[in-house]
């Protein structure tokens, strides 16, 4: 099994360019973990050996926004940190994707107060929302797979 059987004997495979690019892109995501709060604990779990996000080609964190293409916003975003998050997003190069990790980033969670941004989609576009407080590692993996699916099906600019 493997590639050899997939491509058959004649070493030629026809596909749409979009799909080929999508296939390549979805397995080479470089996350920028914007870790602020409790969800960071689950981010640690999910990226360490037990749950191993590396299996999905998305475990090598790049801490420079310019090298990253997936912004993982992990944890509550307060009014004070929000401009920083926006600047990090603006500094990333296209194509870029955003994962809202945890319910605080999705909606503000139960921090309905003066200090908390009620969902990061009020300040930047979000591709995948992963609910949970914090989400279990399995949920995170599912969220990542959903993003990969989205990238695969996307119309790519090249």
């Amino acid at each position, binding site marked *: 099994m493997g590639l050899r059987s997939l491509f058959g004997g004649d070493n030629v495979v026809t596909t749409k360019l979009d799909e080929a690019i999508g296939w390549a892109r979805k397995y080479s995501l470089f996350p920028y973990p*914007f*870790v*602020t*709060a*409790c969800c*960071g*604990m*689950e981010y*640690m*779990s999910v990226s*360490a*050996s*037990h749950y191993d996000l590396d299996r999905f080609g998305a475990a090598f*964190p790049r*801490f420079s926004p310019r090298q990253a293409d997936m912004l993982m916003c992990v*944890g*509550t975003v*307060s*009014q*004070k*940190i*929000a*401009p*920083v*998050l*926006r*600047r*990090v997003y*603006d500094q990333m190069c296209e194509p870029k994707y955003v994962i809202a990790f945890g319910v605080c980033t999705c909606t503000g969670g*139960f*921090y*309905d*107060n*003066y*200090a*908390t*941004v009620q969902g990061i989609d009020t*300040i930047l576009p979000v591709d995948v929302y992963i609910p949970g*407080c*914090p989400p*279990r590692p399995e949920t995170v993996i599912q969220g990542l797979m959903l993003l990969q699916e989205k990238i695969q099906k996307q119309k790519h600019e090249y």
Partner: protein
Amino acid sequence: MPNALKLLQNKFSDCIRETNCHLGDTSAVVNKKAVHDILEFLRDDADLNFDLLVDLTCVDYGEGEPRFEIVYLLHSFKTKARIFIKAQVSEPDPQVQTVSDLWHIADWYEREVWDLFGVSFKGHPDLRRLLMYEEFQGHPLRKDYSIDKRQPLVTAEGTNNSQITPTLEQSQQAMEEYVSEENGLSVRHMFLNMGPSHPAMHGVVKIVLELDGEKVVGSDVGIGYLHRAFEKHAENISYTGVFPYTDRLNYVSPIINNVGYALAVEKLLGIEVTERCKYIRVIMSEISRIADHLTCIGAMAMELGAMTPFLYFMQAREAMYQLIEEVTGARITVSYVRVGGVKADLPAGFESRVHDQLKKVRAELKQVHRLLSRNRIFVDRVQGIGAISTADAISYSFTGPMLRACGVDYDVRKTFPYSNYDRIDFDVPVGENGDILDRYLVRMEEIEQSCRIIEQAFEKIPVGNVMVDFTGKEIPAEKMADLGKFGQTEGLLLQVAVTDPTLLGAGESEHAEVRHADKRVSLPAKEKTYASIEGLINHFMLIMDGHGICPPKGEAYFPVEGANGELGFYIVSDGSDKAYRVRCRPPCFAFVAGFSKMIEGCQLADIIPAFGSINMIAGELDR
């Protein structure tokens, strides 16, 4: 009357307005003009020697007169005594003398009070906002500031105080302007922003560094990026409703926060939980402490480039999370503890699984000892680096592993034992030099001690009342609820509901073991709720808004040993079902306040291990 109060009465008789000994807490209300002198006397008096400013906070009495009360909590290592000093401040222009010249930590405590309450401190060297941003209008913890009153977001373009990062031109200009003379040479210092989003700043904190080459000359630490209004929420929700918020204070060891908060409310109510429950709290707290120390050391090692210990420790932590999940139903944010007990009993066979997992932890501990403790590369990076003197550590109000690394043998579990810690034999490891290496070694040893505590607790825990006589047969709890809802309660009380402890809480059989019998605080067992009118009424009385747990009027402070040090909850009750004021004394606040001192004179690269070693947890720091 305690000695301290007598001495105070003698010396400052005309400045003491009121003295009090309530629930074991000694307090004195003093004239605000004399507060500096009184605190200085208490600190410097040879007999009293209150050398640790544990906490400094404020209570806003809204319409009351005087409106604000500033609360100072002092601790003496010598006599193990504590005293509250309170100064009343009235509007308009609430102001009190600063004590930042007496204790370093008062600098930040006072900035926080200014930020959240708008009480200013006369003579404070640098009274800026601490948790909120400069553009924020008003003072959010004042009673007249509503919890959901949001203010417009500050955009990157609109900010004028280099809140995010100074532009290149700005920093160049600052550097051009800032030229100092040293030994006849003009030295140009460089300013560098570290954070708030930086790979080694786990959690969000900003450090503005002033560098001479690679040497750190000065620094300014900025916090508040994870301010989530814990204290405001706690004033706006029932006593039980606060537990989920406490989980998210120190989210690496949430159960300890749960326990600390529950004990503070129990102190107000004057109730003591059952023996079995105390040991359950000990066991779960220590499991959390292990998880916390594993995370701290693992992350610190990883930031130094040692990835392997991180992976090993994450594996060990996963074992702890599995145990926690088995008991509470959640991995991290557990909300397991209740006022008057815990949610449910330990599951069957838990003890043997704990022993298995502790074996794993010890194996990983041994591995990491081999990898790091004598590793030349690691030791060279951490020995003698980021050190702080004992006197400075106390002045910065350090507690926990950070203070013990400086050689002070202070552990809340020993000094003010709670939950039967006094019946358990364990050692308190102390260091000598107060550097990163000592902190690492203290934490490593504490993991081993926590394992010992858990094992002893299992030996001492009274056997749960798991086998009871009953004549009915077992039925699922949901079915019982359905029967109860339709009024088919005949014979229901005789039956035993099969409950899943992680989801449904405690059933009748274990209820008496893990929950206090006091109907003011404990929900009745599910069987009683569904099958008897008394149970139902009791349940509703505790659940309904305005009727829940209502501690008597008063205030209480309860400290527990969090993974980072003394975690205290100060609760003011006005007799209603919501706390009037909840103050959390966060242990790592002190470390971050003292961080500038710690890194002074270090190399830029030393900031990384130093920051890793203080185990800053933003949830607890910014609340």
